[in-house]
């Protein structure tokens, strides 16, 4: 059998590399950049589901900033992100620390804690949440058992947002797994040396664990912030944005304007403002953490 001959791939053609990455480039151009630019162009028009489309410049943006419903939706979204993101990071990190312990059957617990995050906010979860949080739901039964007053979870505008926060908090598995991977990468010798020096568990956590995984904390912070600012599914399915629009996020506003009211141009303009808000939030985080790094050096 003749031995196969290999040539130096760099010598075949200078366009081979381009050819090899062309499927990705084509996908990126078609499914990311193209809709991205289209969305911006549509945001400058009065496009509706039917009828003629005219270029109206920044009129949609002017309408948006004058609109009470946009301001309200933005407030709800920012409040939601401000409550959820820190809570989720803390719960995920503490759970990851516990699941990093070398005890029997830990694999079972790691799987069990991860399962909620693959369920998402589907119909089964919505039904379960209703069993938990409606007037005679399990949570209120438990509160009454403890002698506390039941909470109007769905009906109270101040409480309804927490139903959504709790759902997303319950789905902390993905964040926790990233923390867990980072924790397992910390060299054991650091803890052993600290122990010899008389360092306790809490001091070790703050002086060794946190500094060692600060990069991962930052990544999780960015990912969770983006995800929270884009929230749509959970409020859409669980509360429908109510009561009194207290759970009506910018994501829901975009959906309603686009598909319910047929205001395609306006919906695209709102999408771009949401994109700007997310970009701003992430940039601020990068700036703050960069400054912290500089201060340290």
């Amino acid at each position, binding site marked *: 059998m003749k031995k196969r001959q290999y040539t130096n791939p760099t010598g075949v053609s200078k366009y081979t590399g381009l050819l090899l990455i062309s499927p990705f480039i084509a996908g990126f*151009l078609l499914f990311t*950049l*193209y809709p991205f*630019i*289209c969305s911006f*162009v*549509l945001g400058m*028009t009065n*496009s509706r*589901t*039917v*009828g*003629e*489309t005219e270029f109206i410049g920044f009129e949609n943006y002017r309408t948006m900033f004058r609109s009470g419903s946009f301001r309200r939706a933005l407030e709800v979204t920012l409040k939601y992100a401000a409550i959820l993101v820190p809570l989720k990071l803390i719960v995920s990190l503490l759970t990851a620390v516990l699941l990093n312990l070398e005890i029997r059957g830990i694999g079972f617990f790691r799987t069990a804690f991860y399962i909620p995050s693959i369920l998402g906010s589907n119909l089964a979860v*919505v039904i379960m*949440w*209703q069993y938990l*949080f*409606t*007037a*005679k739901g399990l949570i209120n039964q438990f509160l009454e058992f403890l002698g506390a007053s039941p909470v*109007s*979870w*769905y*009906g*109270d*505008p101040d409480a309804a947002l927490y139903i959504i926060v709790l759902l997303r908090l319950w789905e902390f598995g993905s964040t926790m797994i990233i923390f867990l991977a980072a924790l397992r990468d910390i060299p054991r010798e650091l803890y052993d040396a600290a122990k010899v020096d008389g360092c306790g568990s809490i001091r070790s956590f703050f002086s060794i664990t946190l500094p060692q995984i600060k990069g991962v904390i930052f990544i999780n912070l960015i990912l969770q912030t983006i995800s929270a600012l884009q929230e749509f599914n959970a409020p859409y*399915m*669980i*509360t*429908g944005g*109510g*009561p*009194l629009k207290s759970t009506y996020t910018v994501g829901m506003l975009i*959906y*309603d304007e*686009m*598909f*319910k*009211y*047929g205001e*395609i141009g306006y919906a695209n303009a709102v999408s771009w403002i949401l994109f700007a808000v997310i970009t701003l939030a992430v940039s601020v985080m990068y700036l703050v953490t960069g400054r912290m790094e500089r201060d340290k050096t």
Partner: protein
Amino acid sequence: MKKIVSLITAIFFTAVLSACGKKTSENLTKPDGQLDKCTLRFSWWGGDDRHKATLEAIKLWNTIHPEIKIIPEYGGWDGWTEKVTSQISGGTEPDIMQINYDWLVTLSPDGSGFYDLNELDSQLDLSCFDKDVLSFGEINGRLNAVTVSVTGRGLFYNSAVYDRLGAEFPTTWDELIALGDTFRQEGLYPLDLDIQSGGTAWYLAIVYVQQLTGKNFISMDGELGFTADDICMALDFYKEMESSGVIRNIQTRTDEDGNTALYQSPEFIGGKVAGVLEWGSSVGKYEAVLPDGTLKAGPFLTSDGENSSGWMIKPSMLYAVSKNTKYPDEAAAFMDFLLNNEDCARILGTSRGIPASHSAEKSLEQNGLLTGLAHESDSMLEQLDTVTVSPYMELPQMKDFYNTAIEKVSYDLCDTETAAEEMYDSVTKYLDKVK
């Protein structure tokens, strides 16, 4: 290399800028009077009773026309408008669609949004319909859709609960208000009104005001007939129903049901809430969750036992053919089968209300199928001096204005005068924009 990148970039941006807009050119497939082998998509919304009946009807169609395959697409009402709107925006809508009345305003304001069914008369027999019934689907002289049934919202009660309490179905508004006390003593409610997709809370309130004032809330051409004072009267009446215990307030209702539809909620199934305001064509889903014969149609309320005006009727739904269909003849033939075929009518029964087609209605009558709640309610409606619902009244944005006002009043965030002024302003501005 630079040239290639520049060329690709130029082509890309040209394509983007030219393709971002919607397609404006129309490529209608003209009818040829022949039925060819093809596959058609047919979509509808509804409850389980309607789904089962329609799937059976499609089976019958397949035995008659095996060469024309029908792919069913169906689901519940919630989110259905959004689904079809996005399909139509993208030009991927089904060939035949069950459409809602207000979609004619939003999706075909000039009559060009759907296929003109006048052109398909070789396959679609329109002689079985009254002229005024057909006019519901006409825009600018084009027949965009055919009315499946004409219906009105009626009051339906859980008779087991009423019997247990020794209560009679109310006949006047005052009797309805008085029922609140009787039911409150047992922790029950004689009726439910919602601010979900149905928006029955505002509906009943405007029937009340229309009956008392003789005004129409919105005219057929989109003129607001109510003043801010009339809207305030409607909100006052709604608030009175809450405070007298006729209905649950919004907070209690939301706490008990969450985001669940009433017919799926334990409060309705268990009898805590013993009445519902619903279209005759859609009441089947409420009937199905209670023991047989428990849900009964109640009288349409009057102010003094005599003045029965103000109640409304509308086409419950219509069938339309997509303007993008490649098979207009076949789509029209299938639509004709759904509307006029006597065997199909027998299978569909009253799952879409009492058929507007005389042929289908006759078939139901001959087979003893013209019974049930939809028939009872529609028969009572025929005796009343009804008003036709304006398609503008049901636009999603308008429902948002009604629900916002009702919610604010229910939560005591403002008085009824302020809520009425706000709603009047919003509705007036929006109608000016969409008319």
